[in-house]
């Protein structure tokens, strides 16, 4: 098994076609989901006439700023964890040196990168946030009641690329080649999962927020944050 994981054939597959497939599915899939969502909502007729750019932005701003909304203020621990989690989750892979080297090799593009030690810390933050969310799901009754196995799966999908990336970087547990291959596999799974799972919230969330912000702000003249 380990042999197989370490084999150059696997490496060339995960480094080659799989990356391509992952990014394609992620980008094309997400674009398609947005397209379908907007066109069905358009057919419903009752949404677009009540959208307002001003109130969409007002609402989004209040919610992307930590403690910018009443509910964020009511739950300081969750707010801190979720903001750190999401910031690290989104920005670490984008500004990671190893990733930049890879896409420089493949596509000839690269940009500013995080100092490696910082990236390491950010990775750990994601890892521990996932652990936090995992226990919250088990302990907090209101979350447990609405938890499906798929929620743990999504958590795992977020967790594994970071765990394996971290282990690969430190060359712990498994031989480096095996861990890198595993990491790429999990990274690809996460990207592919976006359009097909509730991770789509990273895209739809902006739209639902904008809609509620517009209805509350423009039509009903109240805050929604």
């Amino acid at each position, binding site marked *: 098994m380990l042999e197989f994981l370490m084999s150059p054939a696997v490496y060339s597959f995960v480094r080659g076609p799989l990356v391509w497939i992952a990014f394609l599915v992620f980008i094309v899939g997400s674009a398609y989901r947005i397209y379908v969502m907007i066109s069905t909502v358009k057919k419903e007729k009752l949404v677009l006439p009540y959208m307002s750019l001003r109130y969409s932005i007002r609402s989004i701003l209040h919610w992307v700023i930590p403690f910018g909304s*009443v509910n964020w203020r009511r739950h300081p621990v969750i707010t801190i964890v979720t903001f750190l989690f999401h910031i690290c989750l989104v920005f670490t892979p984008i500004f990671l040196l190893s990733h930049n080297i890879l896409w420089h090799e493949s596509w000839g593009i690269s940009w500013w990168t995080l100092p490696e030690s910082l990236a390491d810390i950010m990775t750990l933050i994601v890892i521990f946030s996932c652990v936090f969310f995992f226990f919250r799901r088990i302990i907090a009754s*209101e*979350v447990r*009641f609405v938890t499906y196995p798929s929620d743990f799966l999504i958590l795992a999908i977020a967790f594994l690329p970071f765990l394996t990336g971290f282990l690969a970087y430190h060359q712990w547990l498994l031989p480096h080649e095996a861990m890198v291959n595993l990491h790429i596999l999990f990274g690809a799974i996460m990207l592919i999962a976006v359009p097909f799972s509730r991770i789509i919230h990273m895209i739809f969330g902006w739209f639902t927020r904008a809609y509620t912000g517009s209805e*509350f702000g423009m039509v009903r003249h109240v805050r929604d944050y």
Partner: protein
Amino acid sequence: MALAVKQKEKAWGKVLDAGLDETIKKLTPEKIEQVIKKALEKMGPGRLKTMVETCIHCGLCSEACHTYLSNDRDPTFAPVAKVKQTMWPILKNKGRVSPEFIRRAAEIAYTECNLCKRCSMYCPFGIDMAYIILSVRRICHLLGVTPLYLQDTAHSHAVTMNQMWVKQDDWIDTLQWQEEETRGEIKNPIIPINKEGADIMYSVIGPEPKFQAHLMGQAAVIMNVAGIDWTYPSFDGWDNSDMAMYSGDHEIMGRVKRAHFEAAMKLKVKKIVMGECGHAFRSIYDVGNRWLGLRMPPVPVIHAIQFYYELLREGRIKIKKKFDKPVTLHDPCNVIRGRGLHEMARYVTNALCEDFREMNPNKEYNFCCNAGGGVINCGPPWTKKRVISNRVKAEQMKATGAPIVITPCHNCHSGIEDVIKYYKLGMHTKFFSQIIVEVMEIPEKFKL
């Protein structure tokens, strides 16, 4: 799923309601599937599906809901839990659910959620729980499974265009009778009927002529003293309320709203001013008009809170001596979260009363009365559950120490009175209009 179907054994016991218990007997999983499939097609998968799929099951909306807080944080009362027990399985199984499931879904949708939208303000994604639950109600309506009292009210709307089976002649009689009554309050009051070209059509909800006609008399006092050019229609369309909106009968909701708007346009009035009712405002301003294809009401609708605010600010009515008992103010969801009248409500309260004490939380963040959203209209079988599920409101009110709660909404008014009684708070509810008539100055011209 097992949990979802199980009837909760709570302090209120198992509630029997023929509108749910008898009607599910006629259902089969096949019939349910067929009806739901068609309904989902029509609802448009867009908004509903997007919201359901965006929800990350984080539970952050839980504490928004008074039913969750009041039932000792029973997780089944969290907003997302209500969706979990209703719409999620419906979508997941593409409508193939059991009659017992529908019964439980109906109980949740009609008696455990007031569509108050407080949770939308607490969900990071702003997920519109009220819309999802209304969609569940639509499905229940299409399956014929609706609480009996609410359904009876929807029938009344369908026949009479009003909420309380008020017959055409009874309505006219009430207008004339209230004019006579008002003669005991001020000199030569007029309740104008069908006055074409008046500035304002004043509209009320069915329970006013049926049980609370004195409120119409008080409105007449305010209108006459303030010198408003106003009128009532003698014909259908005078009622602004709409329980069909809450039962899920969109077609009747639309018909009732059309009658209301056409009455105003027929009378050539410039504005509709409505009495102190919240759900009626929502039905005209937000829901019913949309079903008809009207982006906004064709004739502007002004809620009583705003109307009083304008009258007081412009000196159209003056205060003789402020109300001296301490008061607190309940913010009705449908005109606060639904219209942003909270600052005006405070202006009016302060203009009328000496000692105003805020509840906490308040304004947009206020807790619902747990009567709104058609819940109180599900009738006596559900009263106990309704008051137990709003302990937080009782605590909130008690903390103010005020003996009077101003409730500028009919459902809040009755619902909070029930809460007060159950928790023995020794308080009373009042409408703004009742206080205005008590404290306003009667100009010489109208003195008896």
